[in-house]
């Protein structure tokens, strides 16, 4: 019910925005959709896999940088490494962003999953920071300042520079990813994953290679984040190392928590609430963070199921 209502709202948002005469709303909600995509991918990791990764922002950043680098080489400089000429064709760039993020997730995941608990949290954080410093050092691509894209990617006959068309593309991707992940979560894969998160030894004693499932989950999450990154690069027409900073990982986690851990649809609500709060509170007071901090603490201590849990009334 809640999902249907939310879906309808998102579907008709540009119409509502037109009616209210507020074009900025479309842009704002596009951001919400993109962050929601990243948050849902993180929820898959944390809520189902029990993998608390403080380095998830790295995959968002990688997706964004793939987009940015390919754009850069297509329009500004010589081909990358002398052979790969850049492009702004979304049909090439976006799958590539997903693929590269997935590969990095595979590498980082296989190293990090040797550890667990607190060590896992910190090693994922450290890998993300390592990549952050790596991109800060890439002077050709702007280093610390980042680089601008002068236009969004091209996708077939559509004009992505039109905010409304871009909004619907992002909505499509979010919906597709949600369908995919909820099917995944309800399948045998999801069952094994949840079991492995609770008691890995028992899963392995049943003869199931639990670690492989966790790694697959990590890679899928990373791929989703990579797609979000590519879309974000398009939306803001700018990429910078800040997208890899651990504070973004933290923000994504906040969205997942606010929305409801393990609910997959919840993080969409969480992303919306977080970003909208950021927008509105910032208008009233410069120091809105001083309220957000304690609110967050209270939510963690008392309202564990998040907004989605409270509104939908489900046991998670």
């Amino acid at each position: 019910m809640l999902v249907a209502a939310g879906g309808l709202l998102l579907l008709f948002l540009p119409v509502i925005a037109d009616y209210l005469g507020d074009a900025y709303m479309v842009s704002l909600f596009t951001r919400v959709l993109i962050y929601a995509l990243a948050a849902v991918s993180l929820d898959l990791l944390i809520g189902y896999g029990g993998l608390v990764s403080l380095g998830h922002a790295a995959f968002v950043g990688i997706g964004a940088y793939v987009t940015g680098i390919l754009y850069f080489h297509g329009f500004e400089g010589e081909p990358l490494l002398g052979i790969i000429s850049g492009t702004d064709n979304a049909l090439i760039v976006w799958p590539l962003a997903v693929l590269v993020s997935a590969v990095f997730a595979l590498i980082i995941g296989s190293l990090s999953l040797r550890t667990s608990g607190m060590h896992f949290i910190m090693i994922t954080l450290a890998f993300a920071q390592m990549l952050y410093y790596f991109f800060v050092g890439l002077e050709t691509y702007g280093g610390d300042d980042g680089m601008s894209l002068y236009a969004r990617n091209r996708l077939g006959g559509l004009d992505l520079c039109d905010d409304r068309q871009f909004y619907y593309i992002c909505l499509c991707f979010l919906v597709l990813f949600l369908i995919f992940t909820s099917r995944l979560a309800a399948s045998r894969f999801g069952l094994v994953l949840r079991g492995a998160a609770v008691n890995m030894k028992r899963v392995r004693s049943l003869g199931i290679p639990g670690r492989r499932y966790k790694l697959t989950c990590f890679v899928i999450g990373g791929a989703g984040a990579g797609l979000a990154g590519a879309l974000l690069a398009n939306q803001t027409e700018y990429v910078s190392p800040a997208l890899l900073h651990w504070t973004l990982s933290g923000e994504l986690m906040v969205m997942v928590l606010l929305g409801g851990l393990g609910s997959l649809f919840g993080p969409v609500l969480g992303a919306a609430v977080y970003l909208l709060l950021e927008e509105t509170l910032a208008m009233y007071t410069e120091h809105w963070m001083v309220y957000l901090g304690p609110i967050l603490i209270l939510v963690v201590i008392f309202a564990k199921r998040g907004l989605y849990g409270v509104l939908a009334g489900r046991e998670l």
Partner: protein
Amino acid sequence: MILFVEQMLNGLQLGITLFLMSAGLTLIFGIMQVINLAHGSFYMIGAYVGATVAVASGSFLTGLIAGVTAAGIVGMIVEIVVLRHLYQRDHLDQVLATFGLIFFFNEITRMIWGKQPLFMDMPLWLQGNIELLPGLIYPVYRIFVIIVGCLVALLLWFLFSRTRLGMRIRAGASNREMVGALGINIKLLYTLVFGLGTLLAGLAGVMAGPILAVESGMGESILILTFVVIVIGGIGSVRGAVVGALLVGLVDTLGRAFLPQVFRLFLSSSVADGVGASLASMSIYILMAAVLIWKPKGLFPAHE
């Protein structure tokens, strides 16, 4: 050669700062099993209070004591108000709640002290350089930091191996259920350990005051380094914190100083500097990854 010794001393000094941060945090991780992302905030609180009091009173030492005390007291309050509810929770909850604390503290300092960085003057008796070895001129203040750090390390060693409180802390790091079962007031112990940790962080912050700018968010950069130190050293182990801190301090400093020059041997100057600087920033994370692959629990894990 002189440059090398000088950089070694710089690395030692960074290592000492990291040790002060990580000794407390590793105990908090090890005994209370709580991930505390807000540890950097206490570093910041120590720096802010220390700087303000030092400027107001004109005395560096007063500022030092004030900063350290403030960090300790705020730490204990935070432990009682927030952290107590998180011990039984899973790590995600702890990450998020302490993340909330970071937001709060960063903003509060901005509200109280404004956005401009504070500057703390180095006290007159610590200014200037001295000649340690023929040709090696080194700032007095950094030597002061190194000495203070070593003293603190000695004090901690004395606390842990020769006092009852220290014995209980070590027991708690190894097996906290047993400690509780033996009738020790665990709640008080936790509060004291947390206060000790934040006190040390505050000390690191005050001492960093004259060298770095005191600003909101200064805790975050040192926090990540602290995490790396603890992961390398082993959670719950102060000995690990010492070794980890020195390793990280030396690798980071020597890397930044010498990697660009190493690369200059076979790359063009500007590229070498860029690659060298980048790799130097990444070096400690690479070190951490290498240690974790070899010893997943760190170099000296406290036995659990």
